[in-house]
């Protein structure tokens, strides 16, 4: 690349960067101006007030903890619930996809429960699991760690949120596996178990990863909604509703920004993992 070309490509990169930043900056400027004009921070706080909340993520808000601690609690719940949904969803999806008998039995139940909003499960889950936490499941009453904030009911609701997209995508992936690959593996001497691990699993991996990405996104939606329901006592969704009840709009908006950012980060990470996992890309020839 010549010097001139280098200059051009550099200036192109700059102009792209400027365009990328321009939108958010304009939005923030309008917001700041409007907040000044209204001058009612309990309804419409200024950018600077929200930023100052974000700049102090460890500040305790009444009895509800800090922005950071509540974010971590929500994340931990999602990671645990989602992991459970991923393992169960992928396994069941592959089994259903490869054994017609099992699929025929389970599919009607799945189709019946799938349209149900995961949040609708919350009252039921809280009654069934009471307020039992993860450590209590292992016989420890109080572990004095963040795990004491992980209620089984919450995990259950997140599990429901993540389970269906993972299952249906895995199922689609498995049923889409070409018969040729199964025949090929069979003639090359693969047993049923080997076909499961060496054909069904890798062949449906692109669809499985799509399901996991959708599932994780949905889990993050669900946890925020679940924490905002009555009965919640921690989590970023809880802090949001608590701050709203106390007219602390700056904390509400700071929490919203954090929720959006964490969601975007999770989506980005999943995309990254996906790319490294299916380096062959779904290209069949």
């Amino acid at each position, binding site marked *: 690349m010549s010097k001139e070309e280098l200059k051009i490509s550099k200036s192109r990169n700059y102009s792209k960067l400027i365009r990328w930043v321009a939108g958010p900056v304009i939005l923030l400027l309008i917001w700041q101006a409007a907040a000044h004009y209204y001058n009612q921070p309990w309804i419409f706080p200024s950018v600077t007030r929200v930023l100052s909340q974000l700049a102090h993520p460890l500040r305790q808000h009444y009895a509800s903890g800090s922005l950071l601690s509540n974010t971590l609690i929500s994340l931990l719940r999602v990671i645990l619930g989602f992991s459970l949904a991923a393992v169960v969803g992928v396994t069941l999806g592959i089994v259903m996809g490869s054994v017609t008998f099992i699929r025929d039995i389970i599919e009607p139940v799945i189709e019946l429960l799938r349209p149900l909003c995961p949040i609708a499960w919350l009252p039921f889950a809280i009654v069934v699991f009471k307020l039992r936490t993860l450590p209590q499941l292992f016989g420890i009453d109080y572990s004095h760690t963040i795990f004491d904030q992980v209620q089984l009911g919450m995990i259950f609701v997140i599990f429901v949120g993540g389970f269906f997209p993972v299952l249906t995508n895995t199922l689609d992936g498995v049923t889409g596996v*070409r018969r*040729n*690959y199964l*025949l*090929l*593996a*069979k*003639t*090359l*001497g*693969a*047993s049923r178990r*080997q076909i499961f691990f*060496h*054909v069904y699993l*890798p*062949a449906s*991996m692109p669809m499985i990863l799509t399901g996991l990405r959708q599932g994780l996104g949905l889990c993050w939606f669900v946890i925020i909604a679940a924490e905002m329901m009555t009965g919640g006592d921690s989590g970023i969704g809880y802090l949001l509703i608590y701050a709203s009840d106390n007219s602390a709009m700056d904390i509400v908006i700071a929490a919203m920004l954090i929720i959006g950012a964490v969601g975007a980060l999770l989506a980005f990470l999943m995309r990254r993992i996906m790319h490294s996992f*299916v*380096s*062959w*890309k*779904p*290209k*069949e*020839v």
Partner: protein
Amino acid sequence: MTSRPNKQKLPEKQAALEIRGLGRIFHSDLGSTVRALQDIDLTVCSGEFLTLVGATGCGKTTLLNLIAGFETPDEGFIRLSDNLQFGENIAYVFQHYTLFPWRTVSRNVGFAMEMHGISRRRRKQKTIELLSKVGLTGFENAYAHELSGGMRQRAAIAQALAMQPKLLLMDEPFGAVDDSTRTELQQMITELWQENHTTIIFVTHNIDEAIVLGSRVLVLSERPGRIAHEYKIDLPRPRNRLAKEFTNLFIEIRTALSGQLD
């Protein structure tokens, strides 16, 4: 594997497989039935290179799939010699989707050995050997979509050879490659056959290919598929396409095939 008729002692010692009165009927959803194959009687000798020609839809692939155990016969039976075993020494090369797209070339070639629990070191050594045999040295880490059509078929042949097959079934394996590549691949498979004397059953719709490769050519008739003609080919290898005997045979088979079309 689908159930197969009991193996019985074969009369001829070197027969690899014997087919008697084989028939296959397909039922469409609308209730009509199509006879794909009828009254197939065939004995394939051990070490033979058998080619099957016929028009598209004459049931040659069905016959191959029946031998491979992918489908079950509606009439008659197929008897395999005792030393032939599904998943052990019967290999199949398809026309399309011949390689697992999520595995590299060398892991595709090593698939059969991996399934049989052969050690990684032995696998690697054998894979390198096979890839050099099919002329793919240097492509160990390529994926199927990164290879040309001819190279994919080379890799697929190496994958099949890795199980040291006694019977090699090939369903129009060179049907999707260009002419010059096809000639190269034909040369390669001939050399491999001369080296190992594997029994090969090779399906093609290309008459020229059938004569170049086969030690015997079977011509299948259309609907129902029956064995219409049989030609023993004793021409020396590598075969000269311009030799008088070759062209005469070509015209003969061509005539036999077009006779069906009329």
